[in-house]
């Protein structure tokens, strides 16, 4: 069932080629992200502080145009997979915030015009709390959140 072709491709170094290709067409632009680095937002110690630092005021909650996929219970708090897909037109930015992390803002993704607003990444979580996807589209902010439980494990069954 496993897609062996893709595995073989990546193992033989094809993946590097793909990465280069994406960079060449401008899909990945590390420099752009650095330019937009918001130090006070990334240093924020709680959700309100982070939102204020990002200039966001009471984003509208929407679970239809933002699909946030996270595990209900983390298999490993150190690498919690997060997927965000947005169907708003003109998505400019997607941010991921982890409510009870020492630094709440985990990531900012900037989407150049014409890029499909979809991302998957992993975040580190210290304890059970909400993970929030914040989407900026057409200059407006929207959010969707889900709780991820971080547990000690054992004792099941």
């Amino acid at each position, binding site marked *: *069932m*496993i*897609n062996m072709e*893709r*595995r073989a491709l990546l193992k033989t170094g094809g993946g590097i080629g793909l990465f280069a290709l994406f960079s060449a067409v401008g899909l990945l632009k590390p420099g752009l992200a650095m330019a937009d680095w918001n130090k006070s937002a990334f240093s924020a110690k709680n959700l309100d502080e982070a939102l204020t630092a990002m200039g966001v005021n009471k984003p509208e909650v929407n679970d239809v145009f933002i*699909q946030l*996929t996270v*595990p*209900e*219970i*983390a*298999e*490993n708090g150190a690498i919690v*997979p997060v997927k965000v897909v947005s169907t708003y037109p003109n998505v400019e930015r997607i941010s991921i915030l982890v409510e009870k992390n020492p630094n709440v803002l985990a990531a900012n993704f900037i989407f150049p015009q014409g890029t499909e607003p979809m991302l998957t990444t992993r975040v580190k979580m210290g304890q*059970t709390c909400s993970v929030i996807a914040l989407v900026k589209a057409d200059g407006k902010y929207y959010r969707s959140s889900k*709780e991820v*439980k971080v*547990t*000690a*494990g*054992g*004792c*099941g*069954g």
Partner: protein
Amino acid sequence: MEMNRREFLQILAIASAGGFLLKNSSSYAANDATRMYDLPRYGNVSLMHITDSHAQLNPIYFREPEINLGIGAMNGLPPHLVGNALLKHFGVQSGTPEAHAYTSLNYVEAARNYGKVGGFAHLATLVKQIRASRPGSLLLDGGDTWQGTGQAMWSKGQDMIEACLELGVDVMTMHWECTYGAQRIKDVEEGILHGKMDVVAQNVKTTDFGDPVFKPYVIREINTIPVAIIGQAFPYSSIANPRYFVPDWSYGIQEENLQLTIDEARKKGAQVVVLLSHNGMDVDLKLASRVSGLDAIFGGHTHDGIPAPIAVKNRVGTTLVTNAGSNGKFLGVLDFEVKAGKVVSFQYKLLPVFANQLTEDKSMVALMQKHRAPYESKLSEKLAATEGLLYRRGNFNGSFDQLILDALMKEKDAPIAFSPGFRWGTSLLPGSAITMEDVLNQTAITYPTTTVTNMTGAQIKTVLEDVGDNLFNPDPYYQQGGDMVRVGGLEYTCEPGAAMGNRIQDMQLNGKPLDANKTYKVAGWAPVSEAARDKGGEPIWDLLARHLRNEKVVKVSTPNVPKLRGVAGNPGML
């Protein structure tokens, strides 16, 4: 009845000679077997379901819980009903064999009357009978099949794999199977099961690219009607059990992927779509309300023997949610009438398997004997005898777990002990011998080491809160199944309806409040970390066997259970 040890052993000797433990078929009404097992054919698509047998090939005793609390929206609803509340809800007449199978009411007397339950040779006879009346029917196995006995553990589930092939299981999914390691499952799937039994799980993916590890579903034709069986492995094998057994697999409920899978199966022409699930019943009930296109969920994991399906409405239709108990006690039979490509009606029976009412299937007996022979002498060693009833199942503790806790505290010289809240583990009637087999029936896991840990009062509270939340979180998606960790020595109050962090209250050791900053010695077993595995230690069964050989006669003490707050009148307890 007070008796000294000598008298007791004499009684036990008589008992083993066969004169005392009743093998009393006369307790059954003349027509009980007919009433229970003559199931006229219904509809045109029939599916049989077994789950959570925990490798119990032989008939056993298994006492259902006297406490299985439902919290929040689950309060008072199946599966959180016990005793008469359960019987009343499902219209089961008290004083019948079925009432005994579904509840712990008047347990010891009823168990002596009706005899042992389950057993694959008896189950095989029943399966053959149902199959004969329902040509083309399929048999589904919800998992937790390869683990639960010494024999299964030593053979890495080989005895159960062959028994399931002999039984004619068509499709399976998994949970404890994963504790034999990823390689073992794949070897079995691609080897002995190939072309005979499908292993399905839509919610197991590789950790790197999220590729499926198993077939998400299969479509089988039953009387020319395409039926899709989607697999749902236990979502938390990588958390509730050691991660190192399945380091490259990722689990979870995967609700969105399930919806895509259902839609795909429908698109491919499946007229009936069912989920073979190891989620646990609360999770299944929530899931059924959120995904559409499932005709039924065949559920397991939480070991709930639920006499009738729960019909759950979702945005498009209705899904029937079942749960078929544990330890080989039950066979679920779901018949669908399918007309013009759609399910129009159904009939469901959860048949209790009473060993005294079913003949043994000869070829299954031969297979069982073959697998048992190498281990017979080891398993049948008599370690001690028990004066009282030994059982495990229940939210907080059972007498068998109390025995394990007592053994741990004594052998490890620790004032506090923890034992996992497993829901498998058979029961022993008063006056029974306790054999090595019985010990392994409570302890046979692949990470059995005993541990001694120095923990502060604060750490102890954190552990209890963590496990308590796995059991009592008001949102089932955040539960893991299993029961509360069993606690020896330490007394506490539990408020299941409180928020995490506030459920565990008033912890006391020897009448003194537990000090958050003081360090306490805590004995335990079944650690899930790699560090604990590498450190090693005596397996719990050796410790327990040594304790029993010393004790000789077990005087069953009242299990240490917490005081409960805020659950008065809850129909999930007797």
